[in-house]
């Protein structure tokens, strides 16, 4: 087909540019499991831009039950919203550690998202085949922490970091987090999302407000499983004591309360010795986009006859400042000089006492005659 023929569709990029596309399914390509059971994932090729993509849309079967429809559309919205936020938060320099939203189509009836195809295979699949090699272990750890810092900086909470959503590319030794169908913005009231042990208890119970440190909990477990082969999902308490290498890294992460956990930035810096890749956080320039997104979503729900979103997103307070890491004690105690001796005062008192005692003795002597 020639590029001069009429395009068959349009999509919006995360920067709100309208892009024509001609999407052709690739039947011989394995799409992998869709990130959400109510979504379908179809490998396609954009013949205009000559690139392979992944088309994410609502499963037609999901239309049968209203509650499934609502969940399906929410999942797709989350994927789009998170992808947009990451693209804008990273200002176009999309990190390899996170899946990339190429664009989306916002038709209320048939919305879809276009993603770059995944790199590598899920950690869950890799774990059934082998353990990470020595060099891969460090790359995996650093890649995961880097991804978390970027998510934190963009104000995105993934809420579904598991071995199924963390991919590892064996060829170039890189990690990629995918599956943002449960993602939301930090500060949003929590809803009950996820399952143990990957989700923190606050996330499972839906209490408080979403915090990037929720993802830190999940990532800590994923990291432990990746580096030790321990099946975190099948057992109880992690045997950290059997892995002294990992204990200093994970103890500050696997703290029960999110407010008491370390941050991704601090963990990344302490572990790698490098500054976080993104600084400055998300500017307020995303706020209008966020508001527009919420309006559009409400409108779509109204058109589709779906009930309003239960977790009405109101701007909440920013997540509480993280507990400062207890700095290691200073290496050197301050050398204090000796206190100024009260030598003169001491001598004075002694001499006074001696004088008094001498006088008393002389008096005694005179008395005794």
């Amino acid at each position, binding site marked *: 087909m020639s590029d001069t023929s009429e395009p068959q569709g349009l999509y919006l990029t995360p920067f709100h540019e309208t892009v024509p596309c001609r999407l052709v399914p690739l039947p011989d390509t394995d799409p992998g499991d869709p990130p959400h059971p109510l979504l379908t994932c179809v490998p396609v090729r954009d013949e205009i831009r000559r690139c392979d993509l992944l088309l994410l849309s609502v499963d037609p079967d999901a239309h049968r039950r209203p509650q499934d429809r609502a969940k399906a559309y929410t999942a797709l919205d989350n994927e789009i919203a998170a992808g947009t936020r990451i693209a804008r938060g990273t200002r176009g320099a999309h990190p390899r550690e996170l899946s990339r939203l190429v664009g989306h189509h916002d038709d209320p009836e048939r919305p879809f998202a276009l993603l770059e195809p995944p790199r590598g295979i899920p950690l869950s699949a890799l774990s059934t085949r*082998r353990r990470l090699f020595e060099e891969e272990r460090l790359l995996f750890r650093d890649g995961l922490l880097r991804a978390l810092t970027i998510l934190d900086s963009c104000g995105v909470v993934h809420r579904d970091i598991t071995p199924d959503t963390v991919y590892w590319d064996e060829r170039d030794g890189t990690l990629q987090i995918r599956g943002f169908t449960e993602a939301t913005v930090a500060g949003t009231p929590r809803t009950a999302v996820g399952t143990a042990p990957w989700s923190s208890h606050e996330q499972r119970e839906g209490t408080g407000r979403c915090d990037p440190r929720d993802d830190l909990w999940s990532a800590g477990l994923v990291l432990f499983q990746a580096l030790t082969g321990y099946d975190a999902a099948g057992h109880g308490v992690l045997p950290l004591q059997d892995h002294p*290498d990992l204990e200093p890294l994970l103890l500050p992460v696997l703290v029960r309360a999110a407010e008491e956990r370390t941050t991704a930035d601090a963990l990344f810096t302490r572990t790698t010795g490098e500054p976080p890749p993104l600084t400055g956080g998300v500017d307020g320039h995303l706020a209008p986009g966020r508001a527009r997104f919420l309006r559009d979503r409400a409108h779509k729900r109204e058109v589709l006859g779906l009930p309003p979103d239960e977790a009405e997103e109101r701007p909440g307070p920013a997540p509480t400042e993280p507990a400062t890491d207890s700095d290691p004690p200073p290496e050197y*105690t301050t050398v204090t000089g000796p206190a*100024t001796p009260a030598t003169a005062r*001491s001598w004075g008192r*002694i001499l006074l006492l001696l004088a008094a005692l*001498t006088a008393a*003795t002389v008096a005694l*002597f005179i008395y005794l005659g």
Partner: protein
Amino acid sequence: MNVRLLDLRDSDPAHAKETARARFGTGTPLGSGRLLVLDRTDLLAGHTRAYEELLTGGRVRWLVCVVCGPPVTADDDGRRILLRPGPLGTDRDVATLWVGDGDGMEWGPRPSDLPRTRPGTTPGDHRGLKDLTDLLVREEVFDRVIEISRELPDAVAAPGLSLTDPGSSTDAVTSALTRALRRFTAPAPAPDMPLSAGRSTGILIDLLEGTHRSAFGTDDPGNGELARHEARARDEIAGVRDLMTMAASPLGAAHTSPATILEEGLPQAGRALADYRTRVEQLATRVHSLPDERVHGELDRWGVGGLPPSDEDVTEALDLVADRVETRLRQGTPPHGVITWLDRAAERIAPRTTPPTLSRIRERIPDRLIAALESPAPPTPPGIVSPLLAAAFLLPLAAALIGGVWGLASGIALAVGWVCALTLGLHRAAPTRDTFAVTGAHALLGFTGLAAGLLLSTVITLPTWLPPPLAALMVLIVGTITGGLVLLTAWSALITRWRRESALDEAETAVGDLTRLVDLLAREEWRTVTGRRRLADGIRAASAALRAISDSLAETARDLPPPTTHPAELEAVLSRDLADLTTTALSGLWNVLRSGIPAQDAYGHARSSITELIDAYLDHVQQVGPHTPPDFSRRDGTRRTYRAFDLERALHTLRTPAHERMLQLCDPDQTPLLSTALTTVREIRFAPLGLRDHFDTPTAQDPAPKNTVWTHGGRWVGVLRLFPLRTGTVRTRWDDTAGADTAPDTPASPPTGPYGMRMADTEDTVATPPEDGTAAAPAHPRPAPDGTPPEEDYFR
């Protein structure tokens, strides 16, 4: 199998020739030269050109033709004959077996062995022919048929079979294989796999086994940068100790101020100690962050000793691991158990990252030790109550006993002098402490002693030989000397105790400990990091490969039908085959790892290789049978896949005399065409090679017949009887024209007896077939006429 099969039963002459040329003509692959042809009696003669193609194409050296169907009628005399083409004559290595009826009948040459249908035979299924074909594709049997055909008249015979299958049925084999696969791929705990077995081992193997015990490192820091910092720490500590020793001496009390030691000496030693620890931490951090190829250079720059394990050490460790894995698999440990062992071994051998090393460094020189030196506590002065109080009391008392003014004066002098000296000493030792309470107590007690002396002097008058002034002077001198000695002794004890409490000894020990730790870390971790990484990755690759093999075998088990019943012996043999198959699949990986090439996609490669091996093995089990070892089997000894009962049955069949009733592949009305000379009957006894160790050993109680042919495949045990045809039954035609008259192959026959009955044979009608040896027939023998009557059908 080395015998190829060609079926011409449904081919017209042109098609037969074309097929022969296409499969065995010039340019086709060379095979073993053995060909089994299936043909029909009514088409045989017409396939002359085809047989010419076969026997002149250079691809067929030996040919056995099984011609099926009833005899044809000769055109000239109407007799029933077997008409064959000229190329199948007797001057080549060609044998012809005539199967008059594919179903066959149970029959023996003795008159009492009347023909009867074999029980269980389904008419028309030609089971007998199929069994004969299965048998003739065995190279050993094929060769024997060719050999014996040279002894047969016209090189033609009618075959008879006596077969038994001592092995298990196909269903039983499948059941055993399914069960063996399931058990082999089931989860299993990690076995105990000691590697060293008493051999001299290196650190890598000790770490693998988890038996490594850290040796005591040397406290020699070498000659590099580390040595400089270590030496500075030691020098500072030694210098402070020397100062303290001097300060504790009588002369040192005057020259060496404890305040200097407190403010400068000890803190300097503390800083030197902290600096040494920091340098070691920096070294540890840097070593773990450097690429492997730069680690040793960095360690050399720091002067850290130790030698890295060589590539040979790593290879030796890998060899040991490979050997133990193979041994365990062959002993029956399921792969999952071995996988768990490999994963744990990889964790043990993998080099540690920085945090545990830093904590070990800080254990050797803890923060509290550095703090104790950098912020030292001053010497602890004596308390208010101390033995010094006695001197404070007695000296003035002794002086006051002189009495009078002189006694008072000397007593006051001694009391004041004691207090002043004490105060001076306390201020020098602990200038920051408030010692008024102590000196005050001594002042009070001193003057109390003075007062007591004065009181006593009024009551007691001591005899003096000196005038009071001189006596007072003497008392002063003695008292001063005594008091001075007491105070100096107390001073020395105070400084000595201070030195003990100042942690200098502990600091010096800590320096040595840290140096030993550096040496230990260098030899066991830093220098070994490259080798350990390579070994850990190699073991992980092996684990991945074994996982792939187990996954593939598990999938194979799922594709097979569920197990039913089977002999336990058979399952045991198949289980051992699976272990051998696994070790064979792993062998390629070990070779790659030994060469130092990292095996990244060990899972994928192992999956590919095991799939091929599994397919080949399944094919072997189905085609060749489980009784024959597969190609990858490296085990010696008997494959005990048979039950005793089946072995007895097999041996009984193997010993079946040729003249006994067995399945003769012809019709009852075709028996008159068979020769009556039983001495010309030949038999081939055969059995699978897997039975040879049961039967063919010097100590076997029931040995097999000596001329038994042991086949490398197949499952049958039995006898193939080759019954020659009556003279004149076989006619040869050299052209492919239909209906041409042919001449009989044999000369005129001897006369017949009365009533058309045949004359009795000159030999016994029931002859015992030779049992010894195999007949070494000449290359192109022509069998002598057997003396049987001419070609007539005879009523029997």
